[in-house]
């Protein structure tokens, strides 16, 4: 089979020239100024607030809309990651926090313009924030975690100043305004498309953008690709310049092997969701740049339902914690690409610090596991199921096999259950699964936030269904604790309780493996775990 016919040889050359930098220098200019980013996921809405929006939609909105503030970045082990503690202005030129921590005042940039050319005013900011806390959209639940719940909290002082009032001095109020949802929308345009049924224009904004972001949406094909064009007037970047790339192509390529081929051949510039095995071989070949960052706001668990027998018995949970073949699982599932959360040594038996997630002092020790089983009154073991979802099977399948094999040695018979994603989330939500693996991610990773959201209440994210009033009270109190030393003490206490109660087993934080052409620079691991197209440039 030949692809070049004699008649069309000329047109083939013309087409390949578009792709190849070496053969056609005149075309190369546009290719060099274009970022082609391929991903297994897809963008399904232009407004990330719509229930059901994908992670890729979150990332897109970071470039099409601005927020009042943005996270800074810092180096962690030589790699750039977002910095929760440095909040810089984006649409805000500057901001003040009152001494009592109850008032945040933002002064807007005078030169900030929406993509249609109209200036960004405090009215737009108020409308956008009101929308976020009032409309039935995703922003509501997020801003709640920063004590932002009502439109009364946002007040226009003058056309360029807006004031946010808080009921309590909440550390997470300001960082919340830098997350995906509270984006600033051109209120005049949005209102023109609002209807009596839909006063916040959610239907229109799903298909259209009305923002002040670095990129304008040129072509949006849901589930296939989005093409973005640079807004030349945007100057909210670090150097007061527009974003580097003139054009960004976000393309969905479902097959991971194809994504790996594309980036290796140089047809794609950047990809963050390759399979661990592909990343390893690409890294070994050394032709591409691979930046691996442990996702320090994400955790993979082996979780047990603390309300269902036999896992309601703490000794059963401890037995499991000592019976897992951690090292083998880490190698089989992730090829060791991540940060382990097992195998620590606590010299005095106490947590090393008050930061969550932390490495627990657990390792495989079958004798100890058998003792715990005996203490639980189940020396002969028991039968259970271990579930994971289809979407995670590339990592979870080898892991599940190892769990089954190892637990069989202490008499626990495990049936592996592979569930379609929707079925898995439903069963987790209904608290029906006894024993399973899942992951979580927190946009604003602080110790109290993790414990409040993932270890209390009856909502889906409390995978282990733990209901411990003491733990909940300490976490709740820590939320508003201004004193750093006291906060640290609370964190240590919580971590000690975690190890003692062993509600679920933290396994690791998988790496985000960003694989890119050697010419790509500036990649930063962001809180939403996708690429912020404004970060990257080509040298």
């Amino acid at each position: 089979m030949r692809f070049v016919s004699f008649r069309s040889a000329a047109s083939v050359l013309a087409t390949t020239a578009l792709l190849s930098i070496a053969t056609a220098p005149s075309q190369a200019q546009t290719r060099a100024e274009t970022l082609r980013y391929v991903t297994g996921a897809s963008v399904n809405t232009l407004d990330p607030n719509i229930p059901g929006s994908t992670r890729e939609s979150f990332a897109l909105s970071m470039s099409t809309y601005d927020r009042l503030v943005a996270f800074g970045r810092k180096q962690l082990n030589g790699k750039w990651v977002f910095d929760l503690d440095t909040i810089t202005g984006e649409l805000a030129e500057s901001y003040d926090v009152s001494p009592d921590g109850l008032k945040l005042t933002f002064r807007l940039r005078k030169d900030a313009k929406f993509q249609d050319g109209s200036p960004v005013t405090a009215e737009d900011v108020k409308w956008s924030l009101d929308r976020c806390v009032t409309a039935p959209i995703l922003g509501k639940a997020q801003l709640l975690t920063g004590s932002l719940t009502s439109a009364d909290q946002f007040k226009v002082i003058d056309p360029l100043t807006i004031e946010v009032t808080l009921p309590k001095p909440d550390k997470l109020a300001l960082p919340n305004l830098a997350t995906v949802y509270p984006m600033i929308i051109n209120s005049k345009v949005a209102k023109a498309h609002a209807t009596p049924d839909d006063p916040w224009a959610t239907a229109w904004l799903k298909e259209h953008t009305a923002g002040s972001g670095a990129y304008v949406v040129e072509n949006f094909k849901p589930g296939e690709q989005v093409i973005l064009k640079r807004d030349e007037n945007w100057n909210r970047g670090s150097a007061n310049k527009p974003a580097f790339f003139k054009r960004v192509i976000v393309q969905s390529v479902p097959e991971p092997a194809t994504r790996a081929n594309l980036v290796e051949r140089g047809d794609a510039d950047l990809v963050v969701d390759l399979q661990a095995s592909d990343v390893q071989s690409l890294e070994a070949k050394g032709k591409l740049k691979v930046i691996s960052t442990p996702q320090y706001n994400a955790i993979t668990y082996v979780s047990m339902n603390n309300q269902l027998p036999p896992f309601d018995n703490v000794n059963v949970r401890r037995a499991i914690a000592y019976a897992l073949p951690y090292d083998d699982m880490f190698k089989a599932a992730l090829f060791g690409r991540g940060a382990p959360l097992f195998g620590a040594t606590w010299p005095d038996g106490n947590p090393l610090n008050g930061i969550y997630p932390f490495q627990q002092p657990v390792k495989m020790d079958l004798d100890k596991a058998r003792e715990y089983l005996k203490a639980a009154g189940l020396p002969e073991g028991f039968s259970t199921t271990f579930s994971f979802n289809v979407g995670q099977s590339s990592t979870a399948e080898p892991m599940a096999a190892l769990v089954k094999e190892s637990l069989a040695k202490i008499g626990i018979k495990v049936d592996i259950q592979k569930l379609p994603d929707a079925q898995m989330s439903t069963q987790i939500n209904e608290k029906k699964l006894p024993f399973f693996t899942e992951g979580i991610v927190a946009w604003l990773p602080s110790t109290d936030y993790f414990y409040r959201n993932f270890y209390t209440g009856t909502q889906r994210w409390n995978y282990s269904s733990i209901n411990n009033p003491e733990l909940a009270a300490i976490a709740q109190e820590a939320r508003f604790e201004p004193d750093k030393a006291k906060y640290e003490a609370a964190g240590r206490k919580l971590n000690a309780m975690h190890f003692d109660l062993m509600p679920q087993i933290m396994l690791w934080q998988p790496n985000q493996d960003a694989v890119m052409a050697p010419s790509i620079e500036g990649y930063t691991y962001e809180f939403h775990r996708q690429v912020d197209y404004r970060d990257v440039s080509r040298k």
Partner: protein
Amino acid sequence: MVMTGLGATMVRAGRRLLSSLPALFGVLVFTFLLMRVLPGDPAVFFASGPNAGKEEIEQIRKQMGLNKSVPEQLVFYLSDIGRGNLGRSMMTGQPVLKDLRERLPASLELTLTALLIALIAAVPLGVVAALRPGSIIDHGVRLFCALGVCVPTFVSGLLLIYVFYYLLGLAPDPTGRIDVFTSLPPQRTGFLSIDFLLAGDFEGWWAACKQLVLPAVSMALFVIAPLARITRASMLVSLGSDFVRTARSVGLSWGKVVVTYALRNAILPVITIAGIVFSTMLGANVLVEKVFSWPGVASYALDALLSSDYAPVQGFVLLMASLFVLVNLVVDICYGIADPRVSIG
């Protein structure tokens, strides 16, 4: 005479279409119920933001109409279908009808091309094998067919990508119907290879065809086997029959005997199989669509099924059922052309 024959065929075809409506309705209701019986709550799945709680789940449930009872939902669904509304996909955020309308031409173009390649390869292979049964050629064809069936389409797809894109660099990157840097022609038929020709853009046409070759070939490889085998078997019967012996004995040319008499009589079962193969390919080419990032209906339906997104799955099944009815009709009409004694009824 010809006119009345054609008219009668049309009337019969129309009657056939009408009589398939109850079956389509059955498919509709069955899929609707099946989706609701399957475990997995789409609302929980889609409310997967880092802070999504009960409120978000309820919100989505309301949006999808799941807060009503199943019979009520069915009535609403049927009345929507009656008005040509297939619902909205949570996954893409678009009306299902729009998604299907955009994606169906992609699937059809790929499947038709694959079927064409398969027929062009399979019929001569089958004929050659039948002419010399038991010969080395016959065994060669059998081996080739066996290989084609053994290798799953995604494996052959990945292999083709590896060789022609990754190693040799002859094929364009396997990402969909057209290279991202090529501008699209105005949409007329939705078939890119036709739209480019209509727009007079031959460079674009060539680019679209190049994208089409690898996925079509990997699909064709898989279906060559049944087509070639059935051609061989029915050619053998036909070659051994009395009329071929008579034709030979009266001294007709070899070509005339094989093509006009033997093949024309042997082609009926091939057409039947081709119709079935086409329908199966449309639904089953999901792996090829995934491997080549082909924006077709099958991968769309699979994604929807995994996330329990009801509307797209129901829309897809309805579409497939309707296509099946149409394909069967076309096959029956082809029978009439191949053998005037057969008429559809």
